[in-house]
């Protein structure tokens, strides 16, 4: 276990370094001068360009700039937004809670609906319940999230007026966005749960348990589900990332404040330092989360530890 742990941790470091390099080069890989790109292509006098260059340390050799970038990032300094002139970290801090709440709510909905649906479908395999569930799940997987969002707005906001269509802040504003995010993910989880449950249900130890006379539901819940949950847990980490990415679209559809909407508007406003900072932040968070999930996975399934 310890070996796996260290191995896993060590392998994360080059990834993190790679991520910082990749994000750092975002500005520099772009054809054209980064200053021009930031200032929007207008003709500046040489003195002004020089002044801006030295101010942003762009006249230093690349490795030095990179070093500055990384040390800054480690201290929480991700640069300044061109448009709002505030530190990128402040912008992220303002918007992150809303996105986290949305993502977690979505995840909760996805797990609740997905697991339930998957288990039921597996247990009632090949009945109409199973078939309907899987058809619905298939539709859910194929449905674009922004379309689902618009449909929900149409039904529950415009026609029924139960929930507000845009904005953030309170629980009422959370419902529709979380549903949009969660329903899509629940389809994925439902299908996965169903198939793993089926695999497990047909394994010998289940038959053994049944032969021993344990009640069906006990069998299902205690033995099958726990084992079937392992892949689901694994997927959780990935799903969290997917949901985070999905939040980009959902927040835009619902006009809800958050990191997703922040990065989209940053791109539209050509606020590259902000885009860069957010991308870095999300990528690193994602790596860390996946690391934790892998470790969790190792705890759950002893087979994995020895690799």
């Amino acid at each position: 276990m310890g070996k796996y742990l260290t191995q896993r941790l060590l392998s994360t470091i080059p990834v993190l370094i790679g991520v910082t390099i990749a994000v750092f080069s975002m500005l520099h890989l772009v054809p054209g001068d980064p200053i021009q790109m930031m200032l929007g292509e207008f003709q500046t006098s040489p003195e002004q360009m020089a002044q801006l260059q030295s101010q942003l340390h762009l006249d230093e050799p690349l490795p030095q700039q990179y070093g500055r970038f990384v040390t800054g990032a480690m201290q929480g300094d991700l640069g300044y937004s061109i448009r709002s002139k505030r530190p990128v970290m402040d912008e992220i801090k303002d918007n992150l809670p809303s996105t986290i709440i949305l993502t977690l709510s979505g995840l909760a909905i996805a797990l609740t609906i997905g697991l339930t649906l998957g288990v039921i479908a597996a247990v009632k395999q090949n009945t109409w319940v199973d078939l309907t569930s899987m058809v619905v799940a298939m539709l859910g997987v194929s449905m674009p999230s922004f379309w689902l969002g618009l449909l929900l707005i149409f039904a529950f906001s415009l026609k029924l007026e139960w929930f507000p269509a845009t904005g953030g802040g309170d629980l009422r504003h959370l419902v529709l966005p979380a549903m949009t995010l969660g329903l899509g993910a629940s389809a994925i989880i439902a299908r996965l749960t169903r198939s793993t449950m089926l695999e497990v249900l047909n394994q010998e130890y289940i038959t053994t348990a049944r032969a021993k006379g344990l009640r069906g539901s006990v069998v299902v819940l205690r033995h099958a589900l726990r084992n079937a949950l392992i892949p689901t847990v694994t997927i959780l980490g990935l799903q969290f990332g997917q949901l985070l990415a999905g939040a980009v679209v959902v927040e835009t559809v619902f006009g809800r404040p958050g990191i997703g909407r922040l990065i989209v508007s940053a791109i539209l406003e050509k606020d590259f330092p902000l885009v860069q900072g957010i991308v870095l932040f999300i990528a690193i968070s994602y790596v860390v989360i996946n690391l934790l999930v892998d470790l969790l996975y190792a705890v759950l399934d002893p087979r994995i530890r020895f690799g």
Partner: protein
Amino acid sequence: MRHRDWSDDDTPEETRRTHPNPKMSGTNSRAVRRGRVQDMDIDTFERLPGLGLSRRSFMRLAGLAATLPIASSLLAACGSDDEEDGGSGTGSQTTAAAGTEPAGSTEAAGGDETEGTGGAEDPQPGGELVVGLDSEPPTLDPHASPSAVTFMVTSSVAESLLYLDTERELLPWLAESWESSDDGTTYTFSLRQDVTFHDGEPFTAETVKGNFDRIVDPNFTAGGALAALAGYTGTEATDEYTAVVSFENAYAPFLNYAAGGTLGMVSLKAVEEMGDTFGTQIVASGPFKVESYTAKDNVTIIRNEEYNRTAPWGTREGPPLLEKVTFKFIPEAGSRVTTVETGETQMVQSIPSQDLPRIEESDNYTVSKTPWVGVPRILMLNTQLAPTDDVNVRRAVSLAIDRQALVDTVFAGLGEVAIGMLTKVMLDDPSLSMPYDPDQARTLLEEAGWTGDDGVREKDGEQLTFILNVVDPGSGAPPEAQLIQANLIDVGFDCQIKAQARAPWYEDNYNCLTHGPLMFLRSGDYDGLYSMFHSSLIGKNFNFACLNDPDIDGLLEQGRQETDANARREIYLEIEQKLADIAAAAPLVDEYAVWAYRNEVSGLAFNGFTYPVFGDVAMQS
């Protein structure tokens, strides 16, 4: 790329700002003055002679008269769609003294219900009003903002020397009395002695000096305020409460500007202390003060308990009734309308054409529509970038656009066909018109050498490209963009829509990089044309046509200094004709400023610039 030519001595060249952010600029020494003199509220509006007009025009003009007091200059240029000036016209045109009473009748120009919302039983203090704006102001700092949206908020927060009411009367505000010298170059203001800012600082003649000096300071990126002080040579505080403002030349519009939001008075101490963050939380002297600003979400103002005067728009003395006004930024039109229907907001700006009938027909709301003053929704044509540097190509563009179609669809109920560079309610004349003639457009293009009747025209191997530059405030490109695009494609242009956020949109325009910025300008005075077409304002103000025409320059300068109303009108007619002739721009639609508010909102008033003022508003149950 063009090298900019700074021909105007008043605008010394500066080192470029390091961060091209027109929004937040305090006394940041890094701030470079780009001469971003946008959005001035030039409310220098002469009285229109109401002669020989049809009843409809007269009613409109009368309505306009009520809402266009001569006064401060808040030129609000808006880049397409929701920029600046979301348009706030209350319909209190025909009621006299609308500035002194709660806005009772709301007869909109479009002919709306005349429901009286004001003058109800004794309004009780307290309550909160939520207003839905169609875009976010780039800054709250009145001196720095080129955007009219700012003044939706600051009209109740910051006070100016004078006040322009809906009758186009200049009323005293921070100045008790004023006079101008005979030659029109000096203005003397006697100030009130009982004014303090929200932070406790006293208001004196030195404050006036400091405010004006700040605006013209080369290190400060001023917005529309700068054009309001064109030719400013300085202010002298002859005693503690007397300020003498001097200009280089006779400057007739100044009193109107002095009543405008761009020349609102702010606390200099706060400016110094807050630096860059001043723009998010201005400190001024009005009946409301800024409580908080949440980026991309809302700005909230609260009652100033210390306010002990009578605001010029009302008769009540003391602090306002409302406890709080929250301005939410909802660029997505459909959502914005929904919020007023569900009660999430009680007042919204700019209803899109597809939702307008539903709102107007309902008894729950009052819709006020006021024809815009200033420059209509207009497509500026870059006179320095090929192919629009060719006057025939520009004429073709103007002829190719079906304005009636715009008014029938996207602007249904929201405007009328434009006839000239200034809106009809400002300057109307039978000789002005903007015809729709795509065949003639094609002929002009052919003659100019752009051949190829099918598809995109070409000349010497080059394609006839036209980049239409529009602002996307977060809800997508404005709907008229694609109609214009289709019109242009129809006559052989390869028209591409470049929809971007406000800041990069300005960048492109200052640098004359696209062929057609789509915008509008709100101005109370003919002089608005100066900031749009005078060559000294290329790259800084609204001269997005990058026009450098000495004839037009001369006429614009002349118009600025002419005091006789009729002579002035003639000058501007001539300017209109000339501009139309060289097709420096293609005016599209004379729009209405539209506000809708629920019945529980009473006491709503609008100032002479059609910005809402909330001092007397009460929420009724």
